[in-house]
């Protein structure tokens, strides 16, 4: 198994890429996503695999310089073989080169590098070779050769066409995983995303998986809008503060005598969970904020619905909010807060008050405890990434 090195993605794939697999990573023009191959190369190299990197578009020095200073920098030159633009020119620029002779040239190169240098993992930047041989022909050639030699193959392909083009390639060439990287994610037009177009060894939901690139170049899958909602005093603010490492608030008592914290006050902190970067967004709980709650729930990637499990008086309002959540159709978890207190309402009564069927799990927890709060998020992320039904 070779982990790609992007934990949330590896998780979806069941740990990574089984050795000997053929992987195609298709990038839309202008969209970052080179990190996928960079990360896989880094990860395979760390595992001590013998890697062949075919980079016809540039020189070995430029390629390595691009990696250095990123989280994917290679730790040594051991176990690495490069075929760069000069190797490409040698195969392609030979007098009387034909697509057929070029194909034979690549096949010979790969075969001898596997035999002589023990190469077991190939990273191919294929566009120039596709340009020379034809896309289908070039990909089939490398797929067949790697299959025959038992090599693991990662291909980066700049897709200048549409998604259908990738589907066609994926149908005609026996890749084990086809991953596309595109721009725009539902209503978040500035977020890029992955999509698993085809996967042989596991079943995953066909959902776009947005990601962000950190300042240091690290690619992190991202859940852009995780909404935390529920009635007043359910513990939403506490939950968000605990998870984002902000100090607990001593209650500010408003004129009415009740605490005036509104979960929106804490902003939209980013929290890491299961390899995802999540943006948490609190909503106020008061009835007169209904339209705002509805607005905030729009396009939520997931919802933490929170209720104070010790306060039966809040269940009516909780039910109204939960109905909104259900209406929106986003995946949600029911977090029953204040589990540290003794006076918890029995589950049965809570289910009845909220009209929750038996098969909807309840997550009793305390928002004061980091680990327990993280457990709630964890359950939500699991729900989002394993969901097979699309909205």
């Amino acid at each position: 198994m070779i982990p790609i090195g992007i934990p949330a993605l590896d998780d979806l794939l069941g740990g990574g890429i089984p050795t000997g697999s053929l992987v195609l990573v298709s990038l839309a023009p202008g969209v970052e996503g080179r990190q996928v191959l960079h990360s896989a190369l880094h990860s395979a190299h760390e595992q001590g695999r013998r890697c062949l990197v075919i980079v016809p578009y540039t020189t070995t020095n430029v390629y390595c310089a691009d990696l250095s200073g990123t989280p994917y920098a290679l730790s040594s030159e051991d176990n690495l073989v490069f075929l760069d633009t000069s190797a490409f020119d040698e195969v392609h620029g030979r007098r009387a080169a034909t697509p057929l002779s070029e194909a034979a040239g690549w096949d010979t190169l790969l075969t001898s590098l596997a035999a002589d240098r023990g190469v077991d993992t190939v990273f191919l930047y294929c566009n120039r070779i596709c340009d020379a041989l034809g896309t289908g022909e070039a990909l089939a050639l490398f797929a067949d050769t790697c299959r025959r030699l038992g090599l693991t193959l990662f291909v980066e392909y700049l897709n200048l066409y549409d998604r259908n083009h990738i589907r066609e390639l994926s149908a005609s060439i026996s890749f084990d995983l086809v991953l596309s990287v595109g721009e725009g994610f539902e209503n978040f037009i500035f977020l890029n995303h992955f999509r698993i177009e085809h996967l042989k060894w596991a079943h995953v939901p066909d959902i776009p998986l947005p990601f962000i690139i950190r300042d240091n170049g690290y690619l992190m899958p991202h859940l852009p809008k995780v909404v935390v909602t529920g009635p007043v005093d359910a513990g939403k603010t506490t939950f968000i503060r605990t998870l984002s490492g902000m100090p607990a608030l001593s209650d500010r008592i408003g004129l009415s005598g009740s605490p005036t914290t509104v979960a929106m006050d804490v902003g939209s902190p980013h929290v890491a969970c299961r390899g995802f970067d999540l943006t948490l967004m609190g909503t106020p709980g008061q009835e007169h904020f209904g339209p705002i709650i509805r607005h905030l729930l729009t396009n939520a990637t997931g919802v933490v619905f929170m209720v104070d499990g010790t306060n039966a008086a809040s269940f009516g309002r909780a039910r109204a909010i939960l109905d909104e959540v259900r209406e929106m159709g986003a995946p949600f978890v029911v977090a029953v807060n204040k589990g540290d207190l003794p006076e918890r309402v029995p589950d049965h009564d809570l289910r009845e008050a909220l009209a929750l069927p038996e098969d909807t799990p309840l997550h009793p927890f305390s928002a004061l405890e980091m680990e327990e709060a993280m457990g709630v998020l964890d359950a939500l992320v699991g729900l989002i990434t394993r969901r097979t039904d699309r909205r």
Partner: protein
Amino acid sequence: MDQISAGVRDIKGRIGDIRPPSNILLLAPPFCDAERLAYTLVRPSDNDHTIVISTDEDAPTVYASFAGGKVWVLDCITKSMDPAVADTEGVKYVGSPADLTGLGIKFTKILDSVQKSGEAEDAAPGQVRVCVNSLSSFLIYTKLEAIYRFYHIFSARIRRMNGIGIYILNPGSVDEKTISTLKQLMTGILKVETCDGDPGVHTLRYQDISGRVSPPVRYRFEGDELVVDEP
């Protein structure tokens, strides 16, 4: 208002208006000062942003051709000689014109910065002007079909931004089919020719999307200024 140089205004008067969004193929043989003409056409006025994608000159040379203003450069030649050269706010590098993936990503980055700097200044958004110098070089590394597809997406982005793109191509380096294919991406064609006798004087004609061709305009450069010769 429009602070383009007097010479360009003169040209515009003679060849018809070039209005954004426009994607213009600049057909010019070598030694015709094609990039000087292109740079003059994309020279930024106050709030404008000019992006030069350069396969033929390094970033400092490109900057030297502009008197100032907001100029961004995507340098496709320096990195192959100096692999460690690092991107800056204004200059991004790709290893070679063969790297269309890297080029697309860095062009997006520049557009993001342009947008951010517009928001930061809170000024009326200026125009984005892009110069590709040159398509001829891209065609050395990549076949026509891929270049066409790439610039199809590229020119559409310029159109959506209501920008202006100027694409330099040496017609002598490519065949008819290449020119006619690339023409499909354009809203107009500027054709530059040398003038018999005087090496400093050139002629240009503009053909718009409807096929209308302007009368020839003779021009030369005096310093950085484009000067139109009266007939």
